Protein backbone atom coordinates (compact mmCIF):
# COMPACT_ATOMS: atom_id res chain seq x y z
CA UNK A 1 0.00 0.00 0.00
CA UNK A 2 0.97 3.62 -0.28
CA UNK A 3 1.43 5.81 2.78
CA UNK A 4 1.47 9.59 2.58
CA UNK A 5 2.08 11.81 5.56
CA UNK A 6 3.76 15.04 6.53
CA UNK A 7 7.14 14.46 8.10
CA UNK A 8 9.06 17.40 9.52
CA UNK A 9 6.87 19.80 7.57
CA UNK A 10 7.30 18.08 4.23
CA UNK A 11 4.92 15.72 2.47
CA UNK A 12 6.47 12.28 2.20
CA UNK A 13 5.23 9.27 0.32
CA UNK A 14 6.19 5.64 0.59
CA UNK A 15 5.10 2.96 -1.86
CA UNK A 16 4.86 -0.81 -1.50
CA UNK A 17 4.53 -0.56 2.24
CA UNK A 18 3.63 -3.89 3.81
CA UNK A 19 0.39 -3.55 5.79
CA UNK A 20 1.95 -4.81 9.01
CA UNK A 21 4.88 -2.42 8.84
CA UNK A 22 5.48 0.13 11.58
CA UNK A 23 5.82 3.86 11.15
CA UNK A 24 9.37 3.43 12.46
CA UNK A 25 10.29 1.10 9.62
CA UNK A 26 8.75 3.41 7.04
CA UNK A 27 10.63 6.42 8.39
CA UNK A 28 13.96 4.64 8.58
CA UNK A 29 13.92 2.32 5.61
CA UNK A 30 11.63 4.02 3.13
CA UNK A 31 11.89 7.74 3.82
CA UNK A 32 15.60 7.93 4.57
CA UNK A 33 15.10 9.25 8.09
CA UNK A 34 17.15 7.02 10.40
CA UNK A 35 17.06 9.47 13.33
CA UNK A 36 14.39 7.58 15.25
CA UNK A 37 16.19 4.46 16.40
CA UNK A 38 15.10 0.86 16.40
CA UNK A 39 16.21 -0.88 19.56
CA UNK A 40 13.41 -3.05 20.90
CA UNK A 41 10.39 -2.82 18.60
CA UNK A 42 8.15 -3.40 21.60
CA UNK A 43 7.60 0.00 23.17
CA UNK A 44 10.02 -0.59 26.02
CA UNK A 45 12.93 1.70 25.21
CA UNK A 46 11.55 4.90 23.67
CA UNK A 47 14.47 5.33 21.27
CA UNK A 48 11.93 5.47 18.42
CA UNK A 49 9.95 8.35 19.99
CA UNK A 50 8.43 10.77 17.46
CA UNK A 51 5.56 13.27 17.60
CA UNK A 52 2.39 12.09 15.86
CA UNK A 53 0.03 15.05 15.46
CA UNK A 54 2.05 16.61 18.26
CA UNK A 55 1.79 13.64 20.64
CA UNK A 56 4.93 11.71 21.67
CA UNK A 57 4.55 8.06 20.66
CA UNK A 58 6.69 5.02 20.01
CA UNK A 59 6.94 4.89 16.22
CA UNK A 60 7.56 1.14 16.43
CA UNK A 61 3.99 0.66 17.73
CA UNK A 62 2.19 2.83 15.17
CA UNK A 63 1.09 0.88 12.11
CA UNK A 64 2.29 2.68 8.99
CA UNK A 65 -1.26 2.93 7.69
CA UNK A 66 -2.32 4.70 10.88
CA UNK A 67 0.03 7.56 10.01
CA UNK A 68 -1.73 8.18 6.69
CA UNK A 69 -2.49 11.89 6.31
CA UNK A 70 -1.03 12.75 9.70
CA UNK A 71 1.78 14.97 10.90
CA UNK A 72 5.04 13.45 12.13
CA UNK A 73 8.05 15.16 13.69
CA UNK A 74 11.29 13.21 14.09
CA UNK A 75 14.59 14.26 15.62
CA UNK A 76 15.75 15.33 12.15
CA UNK A 77 13.06 18.03 12.16
CA UNK A 78 13.26 18.91 15.84
CA UNK A 79 15.37 22.06 15.43
CA UNK A 80 13.07 23.52 12.76
CA UNK A 81 10.04 22.51 14.77
CA UNK A 82 11.39 24.19 17.91
CA UNK A 83 12.43 27.32 16.01
CA UNK A 84 8.98 27.76 14.52
CA UNK A 85 7.30 27.11 17.83
CA UNK A 86 9.56 29.30 19.95
CA UNK A 87 10.07 32.04 17.34
CA UNK A 88 13.78 32.15 18.12
CA UNK A 89 17.02 30.61 16.82
CA UNK A 90 18.63 30.66 13.39
CA UNK A 91 18.09 28.16 10.57
CA UNK A 92 20.70 25.43 10.82
CA UNK A 93 21.10 25.85 14.57
CA UNK A 94 20.34 23.00 16.94
CA UNK A 95 17.21 23.10 19.06
CA UNK A 96 17.83 24.39 22.62
CA UNK A 97 17.30 20.92 24.03
CA UNK A 98 19.87 19.47 21.61
CA UNK A 99 22.39 22.17 22.56
CA UNK A 100 21.79 21.42 26.24
CA UNK A 101 22.37 17.67 25.77
CA UNK A 102 25.75 18.42 24.19
CA UNK A 103 26.72 21.03 26.77
CA UNK A 104 25.71 18.83 29.69
CA UNK A 105 27.53 15.78 28.33
CA UNK A 106 24.29 13.83 28.22
CA UNK A 107 25.32 11.76 25.21
CA UNK A 108 27.58 8.74 25.20
CA UNK A 109 26.87 6.16 22.47
CA UNK A 110 23.94 8.33 21.40
CA UNK A 111 21.53 5.56 20.58
CA UNK A 112 18.90 6.72 23.06
CA UNK A 113 19.44 10.40 22.30
CA UNK A 114 16.95 11.01 19.47
CA UNK A 115 14.06 9.60 21.49
CA UNK A 116 15.09 11.46 24.61
CA UNK A 117 15.39 14.73 22.71
CA UNK A 118 11.90 14.43 21.28
CA UNK A 119 10.46 13.50 24.69
CA UNK A 120 12.39 16.21 26.56
CA UNK A 121 11.47 18.88 24.03
CA UNK A 122 7.80 18.00 24.42
CA UNK A 123 8.08 18.19 28.21
CA UNK A 124 9.58 21.68 28.03
CA UNK A 125 6.89 22.73 25.57
CA UNK A 126 4.25 21.83 28.18
CA UNK A 127 6.15 22.86 31.25
CA UNK A 128 8.93 25.43 31.09
CA UNK A 129 10.16 24.84 34.63
CA UNK A 130 9.71 21.13 35.35
CA UNK A 131 10.56 19.68 38.75
CA UNK A 132 12.91 16.71 38.90
CA UNK A 133 9.88 14.51 39.40
CA UNK A 134 8.29 15.96 36.24
CA UNK A 135 11.46 15.24 34.27
CA UNK A 136 11.74 11.69 35.55
CA UNK A 137 8.10 11.06 34.75
CA UNK A 138 8.31 12.53 31.25
CA UNK A 139 11.41 10.50 30.43
CA UNK A 140 10.29 7.29 32.13
CA UNK A 141 9.62 5.67 28.76
CA UNK A 142 13.16 6.23 27.49
CA UNK A 143 15.97 3.86 28.41
CA UNK A 144 19.65 4.74 28.31
CA UNK A 145 22.26 2.04 28.82
CA UNK A 146 25.25 4.40 29.06
CA UNK A 147 24.84 7.62 30.99
CA UNK A 148 23.17 6.56 34.20
CA UNK A 149 20.62 9.32 33.48
CA UNK A 150 22.16 11.98 35.75
CA UNK A 151 23.61 13.98 32.88
CA UNK A 152 20.36 13.64 30.99
CA UNK A 153 18.52 15.18 33.94
CA UNK A 154 21.22 17.91 34.00
CA UNK A 155 20.62 18.58 30.32
CA UNK A 156 16.89 19.00 30.72
CA UNK A 157 17.38 21.29 33.73
CA UNK A 158 19.89 23.30 31.70
CA UNK A 159 17.55 23.64 28.73
CA UNK A 160 14.76 24.72 31.07
CA UNK A 161 16.95 27.27 32.83
CA UNK A 162 18.16 28.72 29.53
CA UNK A 163 14.62 28.87 28.21
CA UNK A 164 13.38 30.71 31.27
CA UNK A 165 16.39 33.05 31.17
CA UNK A 166 15.65 33.80 27.53
CA UNK A 167 11.97 34.58 27.99
CA UNK A 168 12.69 36.59 31.13
CA UNK A 169 15.35 38.50 29.16
CA UNK A 170 12.71 39.29 26.56
CA UNK A 171 10.48 40.58 29.30
CA UNK A 172 7.86 37.93 28.45
Amino acid at each position, binding site marked *: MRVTCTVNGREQRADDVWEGESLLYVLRERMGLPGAKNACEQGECGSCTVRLDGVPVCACLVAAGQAEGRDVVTVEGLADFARQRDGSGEPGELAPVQRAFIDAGAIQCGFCTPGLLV*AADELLERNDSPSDADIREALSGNLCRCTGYEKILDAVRLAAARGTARTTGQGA
Partner: protein
Amino acid sequence: MDFLRPASWEEALAAKAEHPTAVPIAGGTDVMVEINFDHRRPAYLLDLNRIGDLAEWEVGERTVRLGASVPYTRIMENLRTELPGLALAAHTVASPQIRNRGGVGGNLGTASPAGDAHPPLLATGGAVEAESVRGVRMIPVDDFYVGVKRNALAPDELIRAVHLPKADGPQQFSKVGTRNAMVIAVCAFALALHPETRTVRTGIGSAAPTPVRARAAEEFLTAALADGGFWESGHPLPPSVARQFAQLAAGACNPIDDVRGSARYRRHAVGVMARRTLGWTWESYRGRAHGSQGGAQCA
Protein backbone atom coordinates in the same frame (compact mmCIF):
# COMPACT_ATOMS: atom_id res chain seq x y z
CA MET B 1 -2.39 -8.64 4.73
CA ASP B 2 -5.02 -5.99 4.13
CA PHE B 3 -5.28 -2.70 5.96
CA LEU B 4 -8.90 -1.67 6.43
CA ARG B 5 -9.42 1.97 7.23
CA PRO B 6 -13.06 2.69 8.06
CA ALA B 7 -13.90 6.37 8.32
CA SER B 8 -16.96 5.86 10.49
CA TRP B 9 -18.28 3.49 13.15
CA GLU B 10 -20.87 2.06 10.75
CA GLU B 11 -18.13 1.29 8.22
CA ALA B 12 -16.07 -0.36 10.93
CA LEU B 13 -18.99 -2.61 11.95
CA ALA B 14 -19.61 -3.52 8.32
CA ALA B 15 -15.94 -4.37 7.82
CA LYS B 16 -15.87 -6.51 10.97
CA ALA B 17 -19.03 -8.32 9.82
CA GLU B 18 -17.52 -9.00 6.43
CA HIS B 19 -14.14 -10.05 7.88
CA PRO B 20 -14.72 -11.46 11.38
CA THR B 21 -11.05 -12.45 11.63
CA ALA B 22 -9.92 -8.85 11.08
CA VAL B 23 -7.85 -7.64 14.03
CA PRO B 24 -8.90 -4.20 15.26
CA ILE B 25 -6.01 -1.88 15.97
CA ALA B 26 -6.48 1.18 18.18
CA GLY B 27 -3.35 2.39 20.00
CA GLY B 28 -1.50 -0.61 18.62
CA THR B 29 0.49 -1.06 21.82
CA ASP B 30 -0.48 -4.73 22.04
CA VAL B 31 -1.17 -5.50 18.39
CA MET B 32 2.05 -4.03 16.96
CA VAL B 33 4.26 -5.87 19.43
CA GLU B 34 2.74 -9.12 18.22
CA ILE B 35 3.17 -8.19 14.57
CA ASN B 36 6.73 -6.89 15.01
CA PHE B 37 7.70 -10.19 16.62
CA ASP B 38 5.78 -12.26 14.11
CA HIS B 39 3.54 -13.73 16.78
CA ARG B 40 0.54 -12.70 14.78
CA ARG B 41 -0.03 -12.36 11.05
CA PRO B 42 -3.67 -11.39 10.64
CA ALA B 43 -5.18 -11.33 7.17
CA TYR B 44 -6.78 -7.98 7.96
CA LEU B 45 -5.91 -5.10 10.25
CA LEU B 46 -8.89 -2.90 11.04
CA ASP B 47 -7.68 0.59 11.95
CA LEU B 48 -9.94 2.40 14.43
CA ASN B 49 -7.92 5.64 14.62
CA ARG B 50 -10.02 7.49 12.10
CA ILE B 51 -13.21 7.08 14.12
CA GLY B 52 -13.04 10.24 16.18
CA ASP B 53 -15.82 9.57 18.69
CA LEU B 54 -14.03 6.47 19.99
CA ALA B 55 -11.53 8.87 21.57
CA GLU B 56 -14.22 10.93 23.30
CA TRP B 57 -16.01 10.60 26.62
CA GLU B 58 -19.20 11.97 28.10
CA VAL B 59 -19.79 12.66 31.74
CA GLY B 60 -23.48 12.11 32.50
CA GLU B 61 -25.55 12.49 35.62
CA ARG B 62 -24.56 9.15 37.11
CA THR B 63 -22.21 7.50 34.64
CA VAL B 64 -19.28 8.18 32.39
CA ARG B 65 -19.41 6.86 28.86
CA LEU B 66 -15.76 6.32 28.02
CA GLY B 67 -14.97 5.84 24.33
CA ALA B 68 -12.97 2.67 23.64
CA SER B 69 -9.92 4.55 22.34
CA VAL B 70 -9.64 7.35 24.89
CA PRO B 71 -5.91 7.24 25.70
CA TYR B 72 -4.83 6.61 29.28
CA THR B 73 -3.25 10.08 29.34
CA ARG B 74 -6.66 11.70 28.83
CA ILE B 75 -8.20 9.54 31.58
CA MET B 76 -5.47 10.59 34.03
CA GLU B 77 -5.83 14.24 33.14
CA ASN B 78 -9.59 14.58 32.83
CA LEU B 79 -11.41 11.89 34.76
CA ARG B 80 -9.66 11.88 38.13
CA THR B 81 -12.80 12.98 39.97
CA GLU B 82 -15.32 10.80 38.18
CA LEU B 83 -13.19 7.67 37.82
CA PRO B 84 -10.44 7.95 40.44
CA GLY B 85 -9.59 4.23 40.53
CA LEU B 86 -9.23 3.96 36.77
CA ALA B 87 -7.26 7.23 36.63
CA LEU B 88 -4.79 5.89 39.21
CA ALA B 89 -4.44 2.63 37.33
CA ALA B 90 -4.00 4.47 34.02
CA HIS B 91 -1.09 6.35 35.52
CA THR B 92 0.72 3.09 36.27
CA VAL B 93 0.50 1.81 32.68
CA ALA B 94 3.86 1.62 30.93
CA SER B 95 5.21 5.07 29.98
CA PRO B 96 3.96 8.41 28.66
CA GLN B 97 4.43 7.29 25.05
CA ILE B 98 2.35 4.15 25.60
CA ARG B 99 -0.28 6.02 27.66
CA ASN B 100 -0.63 8.50 24.81
CA ARG B 101 -1.77 5.68 22.51
CA GLY B 102 -3.20 2.83 24.55
CA GLY B 103 -6.66 2.82 26.09
CA VAL B 104 -9.28 0.78 27.87
CA GLY B 105 -10.80 -0.68 24.68
CA GLY B 106 -7.45 -2.25 23.81
CA ASN B 107 -6.93 -3.45 27.37
CA LEU B 108 -10.36 -5.14 27.22
CA GLY B 109 -9.61 -6.52 23.75
CA THR B 110 -6.43 -8.17 25.00
CA ALA B 111 -8.12 -9.17 28.29
CA SER B 112 -4.78 -10.06 29.86
CA PRO B 113 -5.11 -10.96 33.55
CA ALA B 114 -2.37 -8.34 34.07
CA GLY B 115 -4.22 -5.50 32.30
CA ASP B 116 -4.29 -2.56 34.70
CA ALA B 117 -7.72 -1.24 33.72
CA HIS B 118 -9.47 -4.43 34.79
CA PRO B 119 -9.25 -4.22 38.62
CA PRO B 120 -10.75 -0.71 38.76
CA LEU B 121 -13.42 -1.65 36.21
CA LEU B 122 -14.41 -4.60 38.39
CA ALA B 123 -14.37 -2.43 41.50
CA THR B 124 -16.59 0.27 40.03
CA GLY B 125 -18.84 -2.08 38.07
CA GLY B 126 -20.33 -1.00 34.79
CA ALA B 127 -20.76 -2.39 31.33
CA VAL B 128 -18.97 -2.75 28.04
CA GLU B 129 -20.93 -1.43 25.07
CA ALA B 130 -20.30 -3.99 22.34
CA GLU B 131 -21.77 -3.57 18.90
CA SER B 132 -22.03 -5.44 15.63
CA VAL B 133 -24.19 -5.03 12.55
CA ARG B 134 -26.63 -7.24 14.49
CA GLY B 135 -27.08 -4.67 17.23
CA VAL B 136 -25.80 -3.30 20.53
CA ARG B 137 -25.12 -5.38 23.62
CA MET B 138 -24.27 -4.13 27.10
CA ILE B 139 -21.96 -6.70 28.67
CA PRO B 140 -21.56 -6.28 32.44
CA VAL B 141 -17.88 -5.97 33.34
CA ASP B 142 -18.36 -8.97 35.65
CA ASP B 143 -19.20 -11.17 32.65
CA PHE B 144 -16.60 -9.80 30.27
CA TYR B 145 -13.51 -11.84 31.20
CA VAL B 146 -14.12 -15.45 30.26
CA GLY B 147 -10.66 -17.03 30.22
CA VAL B 148 -6.95 -16.37 29.95
CA LYS B 149 -6.78 -13.55 27.42
CA ARG B 150 -10.33 -14.31 26.34
CA ASN B 151 -13.29 -11.98 26.50
CA ALA B 152 -17.01 -12.17 25.83
CA LEU B 153 -16.94 -10.43 22.44
CA ALA B 154 -18.41 -12.24 19.45
CA PRO B 155 -16.20 -12.37 16.35
CA ASP B 156 -18.18 -9.66 14.58
CA GLU B 157 -18.36 -7.31 17.57
CA LEU B 158 -16.37 -4.20 18.40
CA ILE B 159 -16.19 -2.30 21.66
CA ARG B 160 -17.59 1.15 21.29
CA ALA B 161 -17.43 2.41 24.85
CA VAL B 162 -17.38 1.48 28.50
CA HIS B 163 -20.13 2.77 30.79
CA LEU B 164 -18.90 3.33 34.32
CA PRO B 165 -20.73 4.72 37.34
CA LYS B 166 -19.24 7.96 38.60
CA ALA B 167 -17.45 7.48 41.90
CA ASP B 168 -19.73 7.97 44.91
CA GLY B 169 -16.87 7.42 47.35
CA PRO B 170 -13.11 6.94 47.59
CA GLN B 171 -11.36 4.51 45.24
CA GLN B 172 -7.82 3.19 45.24
CA PHE B 173 -5.53 1.15 43.03
CA SER B 174 -2.31 -0.54 44.02
CA LYS B 175 0.14 -2.47 41.87
CA VAL B 176 3.26 -4.47 42.65
CA GLY B 177 6.15 -4.25 40.21
CA THR B 178 9.89 -3.85 40.11
CA ARG B 179 9.89 -0.18 39.23
CA ASN B 180 7.49 2.71 38.88
CA ALA B 181 7.30 2.77 35.09
CA MET B 182 7.13 0.22 32.31
CA VAL B 183 6.11 -2.62 34.48
CA ILE B 184 3.63 -5.42 33.98
CA ALA B 185 1.86 -5.99 37.27
CA VAL B 186 3.15 -8.83 39.41
CA CYS B 187 -0.28 -8.38 40.91
CA ALA B 188 -2.67 -5.49 41.44
CA PHE B 189 -5.65 -4.61 43.60
CA ALA B 190 -8.44 -2.06 43.29
CA LEU B 191 -10.96 -1.08 45.93
CA ALA B 192 -14.00 1.16 45.61
CA LEU B 193 -16.17 2.25 48.52
CA HIS B 194 -19.76 2.88 47.54
CA PRO B 195 -21.27 4.90 50.41
CA GLU B 196 -24.56 5.44 48.54
CA THR B 197 -25.34 1.75 48.50
CA ARG B 198 -23.27 1.01 51.60
CA THR B 199 -21.26 -1.55 49.65
CA VAL B 200 -17.66 -2.11 48.63
CA ARG B 201 -16.28 -3.70 45.49
CA THR B 202 -12.85 -4.99 44.58
CA GLY B 203 -10.80 -6.12 41.60
CA ILE B 204 -7.67 -8.26 41.54
CA GLY B 205 -5.21 -8.32 38.64
CA SER B 206 -2.54 -10.87 37.72
CA ALA B 207 -3.43 -13.34 40.43
CA ALA B 208 -5.85 -15.65 38.63
CA PRO B 209 -6.48 -16.77 35.02
CA THR B 210 -8.71 -13.71 34.59
CA PRO B 211 -9.15 -10.48 36.50
CA VAL B 212 -11.45 -11.33 39.42
CA ARG B 213 -13.37 -9.77 42.26
CA ALA B 214 -12.70 -10.82 45.84
CA ARG B 215 -16.35 -11.50 46.52
CA ALA B 216 -16.04 -13.08 49.97
CA ALA B 217 -13.88 -10.14 51.06
CA GLU B 218 -16.45 -7.69 49.70
CA GLU B 219 -19.31 -9.43 51.49
CA PHE B 220 -17.42 -9.58 54.75
CA LEU B 221 -16.46 -5.91 54.66
CA THR B 222 -19.88 -4.74 53.54
CA ALA B 223 -21.42 -6.61 56.49
CA ALA B 224 -18.77 -5.46 58.95
CA LEU B 225 -19.23 -1.82 57.98
CA ALA B 226 -23.00 -2.09 58.30
CA ASP B 227 -23.04 -4.06 61.54
CA GLY B 228 -20.59 -1.73 63.20
CA GLY B 229 -22.42 1.39 62.02
CA PHE B 230 -19.16 2.60 60.50
CA TRP B 231 -20.68 4.38 57.51
CA GLU B 232 -22.63 6.60 59.91
CA SER B 233 -20.05 7.01 62.66
CA GLY B 234 -17.00 7.30 60.42
CA HIS B 235 -14.98 5.65 63.18
CA PRO B 236 -11.59 4.13 62.42
CA LEU B 237 -11.85 0.46 61.44
CA PRO B 238 -10.63 -2.10 63.95
CA PRO B 239 -7.43 -3.84 62.79
CA SER B 240 -9.24 -7.17 62.99
CA VAL B 241 -11.61 -6.06 60.20
CA ALA B 242 -8.72 -5.00 57.98
CA ARG B 243 -6.92 -8.24 58.72
CA GLN B 244 -9.89 -10.40 57.86
CA PHE B 245 -10.55 -8.40 54.69
CA ALA B 246 -6.93 -8.88 53.64
CA GLN B 247 -7.06 -12.61 54.31
CA LEU B 248 -10.24 -13.07 52.29
CA ALA B 249 -8.81 -11.01 49.42
CA ALA B 250 -5.71 -13.20 49.36
CA GLY B 251 -7.99 -16.21 49.38
CA ALA B 252 -9.72 -15.03 46.21
CA CYS B 253 -6.48 -15.44 44.27
CA ASN B 254 -5.70 -18.44 42.15
CA PRO B 255 -2.24 -17.44 41.03
CA ILE B 256 0.59 -19.19 39.23
CA ASP B 257 4.36 -19.16 39.66
CA ASP B 258 6.02 -17.30 36.82
CA VAL B 259 9.05 -15.12 36.13
CA ARG B 260 7.38 -12.11 37.69
CA GLY B 261 6.54 -13.73 41.00
CA SER B 262 5.57 -16.89 42.80
CA ALA B 263 1.99 -17.82 43.56
CA ARG B 264 2.73 -17.57 47.27
CA TYR B 265 4.16 -14.08 46.92
CA ARG B 266 1.20 -12.94 44.85
CA ARG B 267 -1.28 -14.17 47.42
CA HIS B 268 0.64 -12.42 50.17
CA ALA B 269 0.97 -9.18 48.21
CA VAL B 270 -2.73 -9.07 47.35
CA GLY B 271 -3.50 -9.32 51.06
CA VAL B 272 -1.12 -6.47 51.82
CA MET B 273 -2.59 -4.30 49.04
CA ALA B 274 -6.12 -5.06 50.23
CA ARG B 275 -5.27 -3.90 53.74
CA ARG B 276 -3.50 -0.77 52.51
CA THR B 277 -6.13 0.31 50.02
CA LEU B 278 -8.76 -0.20 52.72
CA GLY B 279 -6.76 2.04 55.04
CA TRP B 280 -6.37 4.75 52.39
CA THR B 281 -9.95 4.74 51.19
CA TRP B 282 -11.43 4.58 54.68
CA GLU B 283 -9.32 7.50 55.90
CA SER B 284 -10.43 9.43 52.86
CA TYR B 285 -14.10 8.56 53.47
CA ARG B 286 -13.81 9.67 57.08
CA GLY B 287 -12.09 12.89 56.01
CA ARG B 288 -14.74 13.69 53.44
CA ALA B 289 -17.85 12.59 55.28
CA HIS B 290 -16.87 13.38 58.84
CA GLY B 291 -14.27 16.10 58.64
CA SER B 292 -11.66 14.09 60.53
CA GLN B 293 -8.09 15.06 59.77
CA GLY B 294 -7.43 11.82 57.92
CA GLY B 295 -4.09 10.24 58.78
CA ALA B 296 -1.01 9.98 56.64
CA GLN B 297 -1.32 7.59 53.70
CA CYS B 298 0.62 4.79 55.18
CA ALA B 299 -0.24 1.26 56.04
